[in-house]
């Protein structure tokens, strides 16, 4: 069984020669081209690149929200569709995507209701995950009564309530201010260090990618492809201060160089 093999090797995501082309009225758009990537259990992988490089599309392919046109991809040893059917992952969108007519607690309970989880267990998980993201006491509030940062934390609690081993996060902190973003980065990192979950994280912020990741995938646009994969050997437990260390700055520079190189052929046209 492929499932067993993959659990032995600890491979969560395997992508081989994957391409995705959108057919539009203006002709084909090559969103992803020849992507090869494997992600192991416990990895924190950031996909970084300029807009249009396909990083979100790649995440959506993993989540079975888009289908690849070429190549193979497996998630937990099965197809993304089967993985989605098994509710193998939690997905955090760019916007919090909370249902405005549900309280925070009810929003977090939504996936559990759909999965048919009993009300006692539901209550326990809602409570536990809201406390994990520091939203204890906000159960009865509606989304509009919360700040953007709190809404995004609620959406993370909602993804965690499913108790997935795999978290897919699409620029979850993109719309937040620097201070809130730092704070949430710290929380996410400590959560990851505690739980050994696998995280695939889309961002366009270099410091965020370097601070969070065990591996950074630098992507370049038109067609969207992987330009560089950078291993980070920063310790799993990191404080925000690590951003001042030479190791961190060296990694950040490598990411920046990768982004620049991937971008460079774009410039002459301007």
């Amino acid at each position: 069984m492929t499932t067993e093999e993959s659990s032995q090797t600890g491979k969560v995501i395997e992508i081989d020669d994957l391409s995705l082309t959108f057919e539009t009225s203006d002709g084909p758009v090559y969103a992803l081209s020849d992507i090869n990537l494997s992600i192991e259990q416990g990895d924190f992988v950031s996909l970084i690149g300029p807009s249009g490089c396909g990083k979100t599309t790649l995440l959506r392919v993993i989540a079975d929200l888009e289908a690849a046109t070429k190549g193979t991809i497996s998630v937990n040893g099965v197809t993304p569709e089967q993985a989605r059917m098994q509710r193998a992952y939690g997905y955090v969108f760019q916007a919090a995507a909370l249902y405005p007519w549900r309280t925070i607690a009810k929003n977090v309970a939504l996936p559990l209701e759909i999965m048919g989880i009993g009300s006692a267990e539901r209550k326990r998980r809602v409570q536990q995950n809201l406390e994990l993201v520091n939203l204890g006491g906000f159960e009865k509030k509606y989304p509009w009564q919360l700040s953007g940062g709190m809404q995004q934390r609620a959406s993370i609690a909602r993804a965690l309530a499913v108790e997935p081993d795999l978290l897919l996060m699409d620029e979850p902190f993109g719309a937040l201010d620097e201070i809130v973003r730092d704070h949430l980065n710290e929380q996410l990192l400590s959560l990851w260090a505690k739980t050994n979950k696998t995280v695939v994280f889309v961002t366009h912020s270099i410091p965020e990618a370097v601070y969070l990741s065990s591996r950074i995938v630098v992507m370049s646009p038109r067609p969207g492809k992987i330009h560089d994969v950078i291993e980070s050997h920063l310790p799993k437990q990191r404080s925000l201060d690590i951003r001042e260390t030479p190791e961190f700055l060296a990694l950040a520079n490598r990411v920046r160089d990768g982004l620049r190189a991937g971008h460079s052929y774009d410039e002459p046209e301007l």
Partner: protein
Amino acid sequence: MNPKSATNNIIPVIVVLSIILLLWYVAAVFMNMAWEKDQYERADNQQYTLVDLVSGTMKQERPVLPAPHQVAQEVYKTTVEKKITSKRSLIYHSGITLSSALLGFGLGTLLGILLAIAIVYNRALNKSFMPWVIASQTIPILAIAPMVIVVLNAIGIQGLLPKAFISMYLSFFPVVVGMVKGLNAPEVSHRDLMKTYNASAAQTFWKLRLPSSLPYLFTSMKIAVAIAMVGAIVAELPTGAVAGLGARLLAGSYYGQTIQIWSALVMASILAALLVMFIGLVGKLVNRRMGLSSHA
């Protein structure tokens, strides 16, 4: 709602109402003047002043345009002073029209919701139903109302139902249009979320599509309830109905009782306004219950 915003809402309404009343009086004077002059001339009496003329236009028995206070008096006489069981009670007639309007509105809303669900969930139906739904509203209701009532009568359906049918025919339309829009309203990320949970179509309907359509539903229902009233009145006209606001309009026009016509019209618009306000209030309560009050 705090008292300040209540007065803020009331003042513009009062201003507009006063302007309408003023224009109404001016119009009444001009439109009834000719008859008044004619009266004096027939009596060979040239001894009249402008004041006589103007005051005369306010108290004719069958004015071209009754003055507001005449209509108000008539409404008061036929509602407060008449027993509800009396054939001259406007409340009795309103009740008859209201019951068929409400029945038709209820049926129309139900039909509208069901059609909208069918249209949203079935692409073929979307293509085949929608043109018919729109075509149904291009037929003048006055033309088909008598036929509908005659046909229904022939198969033994009488009384409330044929009139309610006309109301339903008019009121299902805004509900279909509003609900199709409402059921398709959820944004992409809200739908994708359901997909990541591997939610069934039924779960997506109950937990996402239906709740997000409710504000649209109440907006449509406000329009639907107002035209259900129109439908009920129109349905009373061609059948020579003996009771109902439509029957009052008809009888009034037979006998040139303009005051009676106008009081039935005023009653109909008061009822329609109350119904629309009631639906709006229910909508607001539902929104508040759903935590959407800040958006509404």
